[in-house]
């Protein structure tokens, strides 16, 4: 079969916020860019982001600035974050939001006509720029329209709208191709007609999003199968801290068909309270030691905070997501859950019906149409859902260059480090733009320094071709859907929100068996728009990612952020110094420990020493200055 062959300077895999921002940056520098979408253009998972985009613009509270945002991000991630990424993110987010506005985004406004900012868990000030509860849609549409605007400029200048950016929709990439230790292109197939497609490229940007589809209960769409994570591993890249998986505390739990679908954190930001079957606001019972001074310990104070934030502490419903998810999990386990195994989330008593519909229109719509619940009158039933992976491709913070393979870059959810052990709500959309742009800049700088595009050898292409066709060479093997369901159940049960050594070991044994079974998956039909065939390809990625998660989780003997070990329930400062780094050797996943880089004095100085003492070892503490904030 013939191969459709293209040549570009940069190939961006993924058309969510990060991929599109990277593409814009490379095109602005004059390079030719191919954008590869797994689905149709504009359907990426970014569209599901609801609450907002975090940026310290200071529109709602002028005390906000990048330093405060940086501090919140490090606290949220329990200080495991790559500090340089957290610093760049906090500094550059406001510019990225304003840039969106210049490209046509229409955010909700403050009374002065500036971009409105709302409260969210873990953020000290109202910081999330938003459009009702459909901010992700605004971001993806604005980026999509920015791409079109640039294509229109190219059309005017070159007579060809696709001279510098071309979008390849419904194309799946199965391999990043490597020649002489450098990324040299990508290989995949076009879903529409099943044809094989090859891109030669000097630089490859991974922006493929997350891994949620490895779990049974997830807010992720079918696309979240860890493609970029697996592509990077197979091409020689590394993943860091894959044990940190965010279970968003509030997913829908009923009816079963919508289990896992996200209920935005804005419900709590706008005054929603969590109660158990006894009617108790249980979050007051779960304020961890490190946050005791920042959260209200009485309902009266928590309620006053909505009106007067200067003189009251925040309600504990707005603790970082890992804390709230664990609390809900404990309540349900203790038999105090709602009828369908969640807890109650109620905003109807805080806000008038019209205000709820204005601020949370898609939540109102979603519950009304899918669960017959009117959230302006009734509480919602919610429980944890796998939402986001903090771990990901190990990158250089300034350039988003992947460690381990020249010419490969990664941005957005697929990249690791930025969020440490737990991501704050709203920090994802800003991450996409800040590091999407930096990945584009990184690719541009790399191309300028490496003028000769690597040539692809026939052998490399042939190997990719064989891998793509493997599912068709088996006959009479297992159905990919069955294996997928069992894999999801395994990760949910054994690598889920609460973990133990015994269960993690069991998960690794089971995953090894899945590896054997996957070799025999067989599919029927042809390659043309065949979801069964596609799932067979995805399975391998999900399995590889699950192995990295389980192995890292087994290694880390402490509880921190999105990694909770029942057998090691405390946070341990010694583990704060450690990044778990996964790589693939032959057919097996290897996990080694690397020492995390220490916070430099000027950033450590943004925290009081007493706070640093909660996270740092005594030796580390002796070496840092610490300041007052």
């Amino acid at each position, binding site marked *: 079969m013939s191969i459709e062959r293209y040549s570009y300077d940069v190939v961006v895999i993924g058309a969510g916020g990060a991929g599109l921002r990277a593409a814009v940056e490379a095109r602005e520098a004059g390079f030719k860019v191919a954008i590869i979408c797994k689905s149709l253009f504009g359907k990426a998972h970014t569209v599901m982001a609801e609450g907002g985009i975090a940026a310290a613009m200071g529109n709602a509270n002028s005390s906000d600035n990048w330093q405060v945002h940086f501090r919140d991000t490090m606290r949220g991630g329990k200080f495991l974050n790559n500090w340089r990424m957290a610093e760049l993110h906090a500094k550059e987010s406001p510019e990225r939001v304003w840039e969106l506005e210049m490209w*046509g985004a229409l955010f909700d406004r403050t009374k002065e006509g500036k971009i409105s900012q709302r409260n969210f868990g873990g953020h000290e000030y109202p910081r999330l720029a938003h459009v009702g509860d459909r901010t992700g849609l605004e971001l993806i549409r604005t980026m999509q329209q920015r791409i079109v*605007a640039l294509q229109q400029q190219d059309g005017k200048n070159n007579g060809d709208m696709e001279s510098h950016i071309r979008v390849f929709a419904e194309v799946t990439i199965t391999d990043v191709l490597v020649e002489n230790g450098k990324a040299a292109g990508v290989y995949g197939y076009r879903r529409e007609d099943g044809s094989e497609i090859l891109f030669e490229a000097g630089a490859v940007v991974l922006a493929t999003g997350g891994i949620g589809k490895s779990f049974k209960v997830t807010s992720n769409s079918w696309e979240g199968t860890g493609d970029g994570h697996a592509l990077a591993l197979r091409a020689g890249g590394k993943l860091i801290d894959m044990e940190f998986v965010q279970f968003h505390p509030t997913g829908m739990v009923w009816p079963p068909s919508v289990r896992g679908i996200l209920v935005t954190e804005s419900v709590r930001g706008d005054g929603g309270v969590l109660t158990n079957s006894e009617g108790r606001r249980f979050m007051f019972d779960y304020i961890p030691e490190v946050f005791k001074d920042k959260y209200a310990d009485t309902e009266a104070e928590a309620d006053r905070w909505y009106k007067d934030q200067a003189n009251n502490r925040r309600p504990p419903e707005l603790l970082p997501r890992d804390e709230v998810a664990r609390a809900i999990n404990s309540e349900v386990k203790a038999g105090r859950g709602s009828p369908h195994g969640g807890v109650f989330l109620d905003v109807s008593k805080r806000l008038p019906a019209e205000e709820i519909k204005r601020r949370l229109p898609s939540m109102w719509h979603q519950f009304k149409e899918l669960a017959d619940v009117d959230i302006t009158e009734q509480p919602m039933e919610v429980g944890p859902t796998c939402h986001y992976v903090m771990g990901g491709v190990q990158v250089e913070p300034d350039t988003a260059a992947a460690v381990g393979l020249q010419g490969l870059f990664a941005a957005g959810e697929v990249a690791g480090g930025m969020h440490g052990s737990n991501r704050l709500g709203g920090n994802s959309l800003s991450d996409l733009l800040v590091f999407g742009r930096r990945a584009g800049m990184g690719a541009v700088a790399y191309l300028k320094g490496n003028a000769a595009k690597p040539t692809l050898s026939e052998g490399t292409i042939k190997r990719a071709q064989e891998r793509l066709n493997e599912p068709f060479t088996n006959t009479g093997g297992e159905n990919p859907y069955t294996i997928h369901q069992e894999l999801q159940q395994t990760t949910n049960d054994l690598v889920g929100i609460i973990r133990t050594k015994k269960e993690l070991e069991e998960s690794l044994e089971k995953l090894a068996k899945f590896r054997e079974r996957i070799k025999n998956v067989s*599919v*029927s039909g042809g390659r*043309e728009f065949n*979801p069964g065939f596609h799932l067979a390809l995805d399975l391998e990625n999900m399995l590889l990612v699950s192995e990295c998660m389980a192995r890292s989780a087994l290694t880390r003997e402490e509880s921190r952020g999105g990694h909770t070990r029942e057998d090691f329930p405390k946070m341990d400062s010694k583990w704060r110094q450690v990044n778990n780094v996964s790589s693939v050797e032959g057919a097996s996943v290897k996990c080694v420990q690397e020492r995390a880089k220490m916070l430099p004095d000027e950033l450590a100085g943004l925290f009081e020493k007493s706070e640093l003492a909660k996270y740092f070892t005594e030796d580390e503490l002796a070496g840092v200055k610490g300041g007052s904030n």
Partner: protein
Amino acid sequence: MARPIKLRIWRGNKDGGDFHTVTVDANEGEVVLDVIHRVQATQLPDLAVRWNCKAGKCGSCSMEINGKPRLACMTRMNSFEEGETITVTPLRAFPVIRDLVTDVSFNYKKAMEIPAYAPPANLKPGEARMEQIDVERSQEFRKCIECFLCQDTCHVIRDHEENKKSFAGPRFFIRIAELDMHPLDTLRNRKQTAQENHGLGMCNITKCCTEVCPEHIRITDNAIIPMKERVVDVKYDPVRWLGSKIRKREDIS
């Protein structure tokens, strides 16, 4: 709780196809997309269907259910009569790729023809000031999830392939209206180009698009009619017509 239901699925490709009837279980609270997924997992592993978010936010799973353009993820099984056979077919206005999946590239081509947002040349990032009330009109149109159900139902193109060349469709009329009503957009004549280049005049406001919009955007009342009215004002108002000829003033805001 599971009850068996009959699903009649159109299967085929651009060369033709036929209905395939299956019996499949439906559980409490499920939507049509859940049932289609069950058919995929247990009976027809290569059944082609598009979907992404399964929460009515991405607009991927557009199809026709009992002849009506719908999102499969937002169509609940309990909205059908007990024992009713449910028929699912691909969107009729677009060429079939396979089974329930159609080639919607028409829409992406039209999107490329709409002139982009044009902010004032001297506006600096972070300095834009707009009132909430002024952005709300455009925000309504920006709720669009690009499911293209409005395009599918619009009779100007539903059975008239020949009109596609000169007609952008309701999705892009709200895009033009959104830019036209954007407080800071500086490009003039958006309404007029809608009329002259994008086929606004071909719409005869039967409101079919508004009826199928899963986001409940008032496409006809809030976007199409206001634009049509302004275009007509200028075209048929003799004083303004004369004015536009004499002063070469074309904008009709």
